[in-house]
């Protein structure tokens, strides 16, 4: 286990024990709720992990990184941001995927843009958002999210 995982476990297990000791009823109830939510997604998540494993054996992370760097940085980032809008994988699975792309030599800037639009803009929730907030709000929010993703990505490129 890497150090980050160990720290995360080291923090959450004692807190969980404390919570169980102090507010047993509420903790049990929250556990049931979280379990229900995760169970609903678990099958799809596992299936998507298997798909990513398959995808990365056919096109290796190095090859994807190569493809991404064959276009110039700005275009690549733009494509990555748009790809994030239409990709339907849970953010949960996206982190290890982006991690292996980075290890394979992909640039940081497009990877960050992809991560941000992946969660902030979703074509799947688009109809629902229009239904609740109207077309103008939804379109503008998505547009601003893409812009924000690009800005965040380029600034991060300067940092790391």
């Amino acid at each position: 286990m890497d150090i980050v995982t160990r720290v995360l476990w080291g923090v959450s297990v004692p807190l969980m024990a404390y919570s169980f000791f102090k507010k047993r009823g509420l903790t049990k109830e929250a556990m049931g709720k979280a379990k229900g939510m995760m169970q609903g997604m678990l099958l799809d998540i596992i299936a998507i992990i298997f798909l990513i494993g398959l995808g990365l054996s056919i096109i290796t992370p190095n090859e994807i990184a190569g493809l991404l760097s064959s276009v110039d940085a700005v275009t690549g980032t733009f494509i990555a941001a748009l790809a994030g809008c239409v990709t339907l994988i849970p953010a949960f699975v996206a982190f290890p995927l982006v991690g292996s792309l980075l290890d394979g030599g992909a640039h940081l800037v497009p990877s960050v843009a992809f991560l941000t639009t992946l969660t902030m803009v979703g074509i799947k929730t688009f109809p629902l958002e229009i239904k609740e907030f109207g077309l103008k709000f939804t379109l503008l929010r998505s547009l601003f999210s893409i812009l924000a993703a690009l800005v965040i990505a380029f600034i991060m490129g300067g940092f790391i």
Partner: protein
Amino acid sequence: MALLQSIKKSKVSLFTIAAYLLTLVISQEKFGQALKGTTHYLREMLVVMPVIFMLTVLIEVWVSKDVILKNLGEKSGLKGFGFSVLLGSLSAGPIYAAFPIVKMLLSKGAGVANIVVILSTWAVIKVPMLANEAKFLGPRFMAIRWVLTVLATYLMGYFMAMFVKKEEIVGTSNPETEGLTIIDDYCVGCGVCVRMLPEVYELNNRKAQIKVSDLTTVDMSKVMQTIEKCPTKAITLRGTTVSSS
């Protein structure tokens, strides 16, 4: 019909199985590589999943959303922004789970800027997901992205409020349903209502449904409790036939 529905529900899994079978036929080597890669991913995910689970539970137990909601109200400026970020990053569930809560806040006087901040932070910077990001991309990566994202949502809220007036935010969904209903779009299938009141609710294909048509024999205070506990506020109760006795 039931078969069709269950196929639709598990289409991702079925597609994956088909893709693997196809790969096995074409190249055994690739098939082996894929399984090896997947095992690695699964193992990494399995060690972090309990952490995400525990953090979700801890936030649910110890962070009172009511306090945040009460403070949010009409507050604008930095304070409103702060509470919006808190609400967004401490809530569980996918972004669409935020829609009903945000609509409720709108009707209670929250401004456009705060709404945008809640939706954006809800989507991008959830605390349990930050743990996940720190594991796979490093704490430094996570921290810098977090700071930049929070700043970005502030600007987004500011500009959105310039372009969109509150009166323009009118959705078409206003289901004038009578009695007790569950909005399918928002149910995340956590099953909390089923556990609380199994005689009223049941889970079908990962969605909660109401199985009784006559509510007269049901303890309405318990029903109100399930409405309150529902994490996405998907359960609604309307109409004159039911009094909250």
